[in-house]
């Protein structure tokens, strides 16, 4: 089985074969013979080059969060990552077509109402976080389908604030 992983902007390809607790892994043209055991649903103990290591892992949103000996890694699995960033860095749009805030904060202004037709990059919402105002823009030309918050509400990262219906 082959895996493609991404850390920050770098891509890594791994080939893996397993039989019981034995794994043969190819990474960057190097082969590793590994003996691995799951010691809990979040921890793997593995023997690699004669060295025993314990990795703690958790999975969320198509990402592996890994910690080994105090070093943390966020490993993305691009093949499973369906959410895409269409527009600027201040906007997240998922497959459900909504906008959310990149950081938790308070909604200070909602500039659209349900049924409005919006242009690409039109400001939909302004979120204040840490005394900074962030304009949340529409990533696509769309019709406003649903607004889940009102002005003054607190929003968390990733929560759908305005749901959009894409215009073809």
């Amino acid at each position: 089985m082959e895996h493609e992983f991404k850390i920050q902007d770098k891509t890594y390809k791994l080939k893996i074969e397993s039989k019981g607790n034995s794994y043969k892994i190819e990474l960057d043209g190097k082969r590793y013979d590994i003996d691995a055991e799951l010691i809990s649903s979040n921890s793997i103990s593995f023997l690699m080059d004669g060295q025993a290591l314990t990795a703690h892992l958790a999975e969320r949103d198509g990402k592996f969060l890994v910690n080994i000996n105090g070093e943390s890694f966020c490993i993305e699995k691009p093949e499973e990552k369906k959410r895409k960033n269409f527009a600027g860095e201040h906007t997240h749009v998922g497959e459900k077509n909504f906008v959310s805030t990149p950081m938790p904060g308070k909604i200070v202004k909602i500039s659209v109402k349900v049924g409005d037709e919006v242009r690409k990059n039109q400001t939909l919402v302004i979120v204040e976080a840490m005394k900074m105002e962030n304009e949340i823009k529409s990533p696509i030309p769309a019709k406003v389908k649903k607004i889940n918050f009102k002005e003054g509400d607190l929003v968390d990262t990733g929560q759908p604030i305005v749901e959009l219906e894409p215009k073809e």
Partner: protein
Amino acid sequence: MFNKILIANRGEIAVRVIKACKELGIPTVAIFSTVDRNSLHVQMADEAVLVGPPAPLESYLNIDSIISIAKKLKADAIHPGYGFLAENPAFTERCEKEGIVFIGSDSKSLALVGDKIQSRETMQRAGIPIIPGMKGSSKDINEFKKEAKQIGYPVILKASGGGGGKGMRKVRSEDELESSISAGMREARSAFGDDSVYLEKYIEHPRHIEFQVLADKFGNAVHLFERECSIQRRHQKIVEETPSVALDDSLRKKMGETAVKAIMAANYSNAGTVEFLLDEDKNFYFLEVNARIQVEHPITELVVGVDLVKAQIRLAAGEKMFLKQDQLKQRGHAIECRIYAEDPENNFLPCSGKILFMKEPTGPGIRHDCGIYTGFEVSVYYDPILSKLVVWAEDRPTAARRMLTALSDLTVLGIKTTTGFLKDVVSHSDFLEGKTTTDFIPRNFTDWKEKEDNKKYLNQALIAAAIMSQNKFVSKGQAVEQESYSPWQALGKWEIGMRN
């Protein structure tokens, strides 16, 4: 002693206070907002009551609700922790009126030390050195200009009613003054509801040294030596230690006596901290009195051997001072690192989310004051402090190494924390050499970034992720329930008593 104590706080400090109450045999009442229902302090207290919606004003700052819960459950004392209502004279006054003991000083002394200008005047009258600066606030720009010229640039602008760095601004010259004042006033108004600001001399490369004081209600006070809290980011302390490498015995004695004098001048009782700035020539200046148990109190507890929270409760209950100054000694060295839910890669913005996995460090000389657990949801509504990692060792170099190991052993998955950043701080050569001044972070860690690909265990992390994926794939194929995984299954190829 009290019959029951209500803890008007949340997170790690609420947990800390509950533990002290348990040891004293006093039942506890926790309060929680709707988002904190599953918090650790709720689980630990004898009784826990919903206080209101998440917004602090409607929950942990809601004086009416808190008082009515205390009365209904017959709590005869309230511990405020730090933050929230800890330094709010109105709350203290209300407790006094309702016949509930506020574990802290009285409303009058709280009002005095809470006002920076008033407390400066009081301290100056008591002969305590203060930083040269304005006598009071003003709305007149010309007065600011005149004062600044007299004090000499650079000066620092501060909010009269404030703390935590809000409204603070360094002003290098007269042409920066006017814009700094209007920005500082705006910030002060939005943070504290009061736009009074004043000017002080800006001291270059100072250290932040504070003294822990305990005072009873009868005018007896002792100090429990210093804490150095010079490592700050945006005027917020992030690493604290005791003793400070900058003090020798005679300076320590002098500053300690001054701290006790300051507490007496304010008629303050219970636990309080007197903050000083120490300049490069070892002159010290009074900054302010922190009228509460402080975040960094554990380092003093480890080095001096006094439980400060229990001392607070005993003193509030009316006990006479039970410590003698000449019997208090510092032993060894302690360091604290504050673990925040912040993203070091995104300008240290607070983050929220569910903690998917957590492993706490343990071992000789390690203490972890913690308000979170695996499965806990960190919300956006409150201060992003998750826990405090504290170490004690026989000397400073050992304590620094112990902290580095403890930070490496602390694993939190699912939410970004400042652990990686703190590891670089406590292993930095300036830190190890004791060159800790308040500009330590801007000097050494501007644009700090954790480099993913320079990490030692990169390949291993990728391999672990691949193994986990493979395992899930195999499990799915065989329809194995991954949830109910038993470690005994993993021990398949071992037999008891045999090695292979």
